[in-house]
């Protein structure tokens, strides 16, 4: 048993070492938020001379931080909610009903995931902003974010549902459950780990999205965090110190969300083991 323990702690330290290596750029980011841009450029790897929070205040002011945070949160929450619901249902349908049309749409979904965004981004702007007049609308940005993430989410849900034995569905049907009920009462609870995973991906993708959002959101009051941070770009260079502070501020909510989500995944494992 001692050998097991030794092996476990060795494992722990190896993983820890890898983690530290992984996090180096992140540490560099954090220590440099306390420096001036000059200090960063001259000594990017040194510890800051003093704990100076000036960059954070500058970032909050110049990025219009609170407005941008609110906009980002609205878009992300809306996109994640709708996306989770519609994609999980479609993923389930595609996994359980192998109709020709489902197979076809599924493949089309996959294909659309490798379509370079550039092919349809300007047309998107032309249609939604140009013809329908939805420029600077957070709702449209959320709608497009939902659409862009549907193939990916359906793909993941579908793969996960396929791993759930179909006997469960059959048992439910014998008990008199309809297709819809089976999904909401039996399957959905089992999807918890993958829902968290997909939510994390979609949320993170939408939260950090620059390209698509920037095509639609140009006004100061509709900017999201990823757009607002560009205020620190100068011609051929950037004001790195406040930019890093702004970046750190923008990712803190995502980090917290992710850490909280982790807890759910672990709980999900416990709950999921019932199904065995």
């Amino acid at each position, binding site marked *: 048993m001692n050998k097991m323990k030794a092996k476990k702690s060795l494992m722990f330290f190896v993983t820890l070492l890898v983690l530290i290596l992984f996090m180096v750029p992140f540490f560099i980011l954090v220590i440099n938020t306390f420096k001036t841009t000059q200090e960063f450029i001259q000594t990017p790897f040194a510890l800051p001379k003093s704990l100076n929070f000036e960059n954070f205040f500058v970032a909050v002011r110049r990025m219009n931080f609170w407005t941008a945070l609110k906009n980002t949160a609205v878009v992300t929450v*809306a996109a994640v909610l*709708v996306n989770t*619901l519609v994609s999980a249902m479609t993923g389930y349908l595609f996994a359980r009903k192998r109709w020709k049309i489902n197979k076809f749409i599924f493949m089309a979904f996959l294909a659309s995931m490798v379509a370079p965004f550039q092919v349809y981004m300007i047309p998107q702007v032309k249609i939604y902003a140009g013809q329908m*007049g939805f420029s600077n609308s957070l*709702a449209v940005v959320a709608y497009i974010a939902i659409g862009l993430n549907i193939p990916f989410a359906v793909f993941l849900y579908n793969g996960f549902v396929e791993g759930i034995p179909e006997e469960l569905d059959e048992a439910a049907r014998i008990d008199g459950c309809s297709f819809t009920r089976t999904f909401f009462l039996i399957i959905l609870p089992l999807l918890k780990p993958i829902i968290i995973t997909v939510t994390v991906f979609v949320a993170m993708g939408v939260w950090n999205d620059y390209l698509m959002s920037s*095509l639609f959101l140009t*006004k100061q009051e509709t900017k999201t965090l990823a757009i607002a941070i560009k205020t620190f770009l100068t011609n051929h*260079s950037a004001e790195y110190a406040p930019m890093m502070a702004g970046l750190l501020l923008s990712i803190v909510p995502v980090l917290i969300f992710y850490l909280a989500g982790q807890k759910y995944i672990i709980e999900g494992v416990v709950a999921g083991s019932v199904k065995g």
Partner: protein
Amino acid sequence: MKKRLVSLLLVGVMTAGMLVGCGGSGDGEESGNGKEAEEGSGEVSISFYTTETGKDDYFQDLITDFESKNEGITVEYIAAGDDQLQAWMALYSSNEGPTVSLMDPINIYENQERMLNLTDQPLLDNVKKDSLSTLTFDGKVYGIPMSAAGIGILYNKAVCDKAVGGDFDPSTIKSRADLKDLLEKIEAAGAAGSCITGVNWSIGAHYLCQVYGAAIGDVEERVAYVNSIISGDAKEIDNDVFNGYMDTLELLAEHNLNKADPLVGDVNVDAAAFAEGKCGTWFMGDWAWTYLAELVEEGAEFGLLPIPYSDNEDDTVNQCIPTSYAKGYCIDISQNTEEQQQAGLKFIEYMSSDEYALEQTAIVTGQALPFENFTFEDKLSPLGQSTANYMSKGLAYDFYGTPNLCPSDIWYECGAYMCEYLSGACDRETLASKIDGYWSTQEAR
């Protein structure tokens, strides 16, 4: 049962939809009435798109000042990120084409069908005529320049003083031989002679385009030369000007601070080295003050040197610096109403003549401004003053001379060839033939 679930689902989707709607509705409505509803009421709202990045505070301050001086006009500020053309394209695709855009002259030229002809506008009287060459197409003026950017070899006076053993006089550099002498002296005094930032925009656009500059002749001759390269009648490698500038580049490269790793170029790192005196000179331009301002010690002196392309002291081009009006204000007519265009004119007039605007522009850009009523020479950066000095002595020429001399992607395409050459990965003949190849895909000017 099923029905209830379905309706529950619908409610869920709708709630989510409303959530989205709530968040966005306020903004959505605003943009809806932004352009039309205010017509006729004397109120007009316009938008201003700038590709001059990192100056948000400055522009927003001037917009506030402009709005207070022009009752009834509101200006919406839109700043580009690092993707100026894409963002501009997106704005036009949204039918939100900015009323006023601050763009590179080549972009205005390529889209002149969308722009207001400013030729007969009174505000032009305040603009110096010689600053309009890159903004005039077929005799029609489509833009107002922002400021003059001088390109050259920056020198750190303290380092140069030490090298020459006394007071360094920049006007003594009249030929490549003089420059060589200076670089060697700097090196003998313990610093690197020069510094080249090995990035495509610096050596690909600023350095390379001198090859099509005043050394070729007047504007017509320059265009003719470019056309002969495009048609394939002439080859770069046979041209003395091309070879002259490449010889000078080699001279600079030989004394380059980054010689061991020429493409490691980082403009901030190089600025710090230059300010500290690790190198005596730096190929850049007067805008470099934005990188230098916080680094230089009080009282330290800096200035610009021309880039000589030959050993001929009598060739004044060797004593001239190229100046570029790199950005111009233009007004859109394709997606803006008459009233908005008029308001846009007022905005440009303000930016190019208002005392406060000019003062702020001088401070923020640090560069000389081409306006008749400009009086804030003392507010310019030391480098900007150096440029202004050359200009006042007549020792400056217009970098491009015409709006479309060099294509908008030359910095990227030929910049790669120049970097390859600088790093020693290809010889000059290969470089010349690659540049010829690039031009051969272009249309005659």
